[in-house]
């Protein structure tokens, strides 16, 4: 029975109007845009894996693979769905729209963006739209990061259509897939123009971007890149602090060695973010320093930088006390204690594969998922080219393997980025108000 308190809102208004206005607390599923709805804070039900097609493997196309990850399900650990996008274009990262009804997935070589309906039935995503005008509208290439804004998608690119180096920018599309605006990453005055990840701190009206490399490098075999001194000069060495409202850069930080994923602390009152630089194997902290000025500071070393472990992905815990780091070359998953973010300390490590790339943890930190593929031309070859998803339980001391999916064995391809979906709620469909809305 519905409670009839039609003037409750007025009472709340009266009391609220007397108080000071403050922006609401925010948190996310440890690495999503803070604008993302319906965070999965309990047991995730489905894991969506954006997968690179491989010649001679299955239908050879890039595809969105959905796996049952609910331990109570009869099909736990099994593949529920595989939706081919058509062709191969270096499938890479994905991001939810703010309402979490759609999942945008990008390709780095042909700049196509695929929009999957995952809200109607997350067990069976449906490809509903393909955006093909990214290069034409922006002049950028390689749409990489998909970061929800209210009603829009902010996209960070890796390259451009003219020189194919790392000079690039950001683009904003409406949730309907219509191009709205582009914003170049600053070049000159200390800026290298390069891009990679995006992370917004709405409370401070700022966001950060990081920097990787351009199409000329990421589509070329890694060995060839490393042996070419000129190519090695063309990696990002900066992070940029932007004004969120104006979408204009406000400060450039020198962060050598390709800073990649960025994670803000999710704790109320915290104003700091961490990133890992891939080539120099360092953790960096972006925070406020002297005179409250934003600064970037190297705070820890990951493995032995001389051995080039190549930290590729990081995952921050919901309480911002722990940070998982995957290093690709040595196939190692490391855990850092970042209770003091200025002094991270590694407290655990485990070899989780012959090559490991992405890492995603559940909101409660008890489950950790890893995938193996970095880039089609950068993955290892021969026996070391295992292509797997591995699901672990984390009890605070040890990663315990629960299941794995052999993506080559299942004729799928190379697994890369992962996103969770919760169970489809049936209870909400049975309520009278919802019925009235239908």
């Amino acid at each position, binding site marked *: 029975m519905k409670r009839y308190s*039609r003037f409750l809102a007025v009472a709340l208004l009266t009391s609220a*109007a007397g108080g000071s206005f403050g*922006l609401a607390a925010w948190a996310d599923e440890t690495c999503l845009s803070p604008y993302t*709805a319906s965070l999965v804070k309990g047991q995730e039900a489905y894991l969506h894996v954006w997968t690179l097609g491989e010649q001679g493997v299955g239908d050879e196309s890039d595809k969105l693979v959905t796996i049952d990850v609910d331990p109570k399900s009869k099909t736990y650990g099994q593949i529920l769905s595989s939706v081919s996008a058509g062709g191969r274009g270096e499938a890479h990262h994905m991001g939810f729209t703010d309402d979490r009804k759609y999942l945008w997935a990008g390709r780095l070589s042909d700049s196509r963006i695929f929009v999957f309906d995952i809200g109607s039935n997350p067990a069976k995503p449906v490809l509903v739209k393909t955006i093909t005008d990214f290069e034409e509208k922006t002049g950028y290439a390689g749409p990489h990061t998909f970061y929800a804004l209210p009603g829009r998608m902010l996209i960070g690119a890796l390259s451009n259509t003219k020189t194919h180096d790392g000079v690039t920018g950001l683009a904003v599309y409406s949730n309907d897939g219509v191009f709205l605006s582009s914003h170049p990453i600053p070049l000159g005055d*200390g800026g290298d123009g390069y891009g990679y990840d995006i992370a917004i701190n709405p409370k401070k009206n700022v966001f950060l971007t990081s920097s990787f490399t351009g199409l000329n490098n990421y589509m070329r075999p890694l060995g060839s890149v490393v042996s070419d001194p000129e190519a*090695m000069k063309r990696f990002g060495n900066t992070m940029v602090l932007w004004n969120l409202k104006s979408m204009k850069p406000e400060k450039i930080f*020198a962060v*050598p060695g390709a800073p990649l994923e960025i994670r803000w602390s999710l704790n109320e009152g915290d104003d700091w973010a961490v990133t890992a630089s891939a080539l120099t194997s360092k953790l960096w902290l972006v925070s406020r320093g002297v005179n409250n000025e934003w600064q970037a500071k190297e705070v820890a070393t990951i493995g032995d930088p001389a051995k080039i472990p190549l930290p590729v992905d990081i995952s921050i815990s919901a309480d911002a006390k722990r940070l998982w780091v995957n290093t690709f070359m040595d196939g190692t998953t490391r855990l850092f204690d970042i209770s003091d973010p200025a002094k991270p300390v590694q407290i655990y490590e485990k070899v989780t594969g012959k090559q490991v790339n992405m890492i995603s943890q559940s909101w409660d930190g008890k489950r950790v998922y890893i995938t193996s593929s970095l880039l089609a031309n950068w993955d290892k070859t021969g026996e070391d080219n295992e292509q797997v998803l591995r699901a672990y339980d984390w009890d605070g001391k040890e990663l315990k393997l629960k299941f794995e999916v052999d993506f080559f064995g299942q004729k799928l391809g190379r697994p890369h980025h992962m996103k969770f979906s919760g169970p489809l709620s049936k209870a909400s469909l049975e309520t009278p108000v919802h019925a009235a*809305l239908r």
Partner: protein
Amino acid sequence: MLAAAVGLLTAALPLFAGEPAGLPPAPGTYRLDRIQRVPQAIVLEGSLIPRLLSHYIGGKITLFGFFYSYCADPEGCPLAWDAFEKVRAEIMADAKLHGRIRLVFMSLDPAHDSPDAMKGFAQRYEAGGRAVPWHFLTTYSGFFLKPLLRGMGEEVSARPGEDGVVLNHMLKVFLIDKEGWVREIYSSQTLDPVLVLGDIRTLLLEETALSP
């Protein structure tokens, strides 16, 4: 060595030395995207006589939000209501803004929020109606509401609460220009009256620049 091959920079490089980052930008120094059009809908204001939603959108800048009268989520309707109150107060205090902005609340629960109930809310704000009108709209039923929700990207679901049904909805407030384009969408994290007023003044400056 790979790392040694990377060119190293050594210092943070402020683009605008001396200015703290993240301050609300000055009105007119930035651009707001034309995000989407507002769909047409049949709405009710104070009676069962149907009106077109476009009647409450065009010709002025509009701050538009969804609500329902019994909403108690502190990060939902009360937050929006508080922000609308503050924006309204600022507009009333600035004579140059009078008559150029309207506020609109649209009910998410037409089965409960009748035109009469909405009239009760509207009467509370009649005193400043000329400077900044505040319209409280509802519609006949979910059949009429749902296309509007879909068109505005407003997600609503219902769940049983302790004392009845609770509507879950993402807080979205829409800033709409006089041509009917949505130019900004605020969430619970960005619905800051300072930012909203900056955006309103940016749109007004844009109108001035475009006028012959």
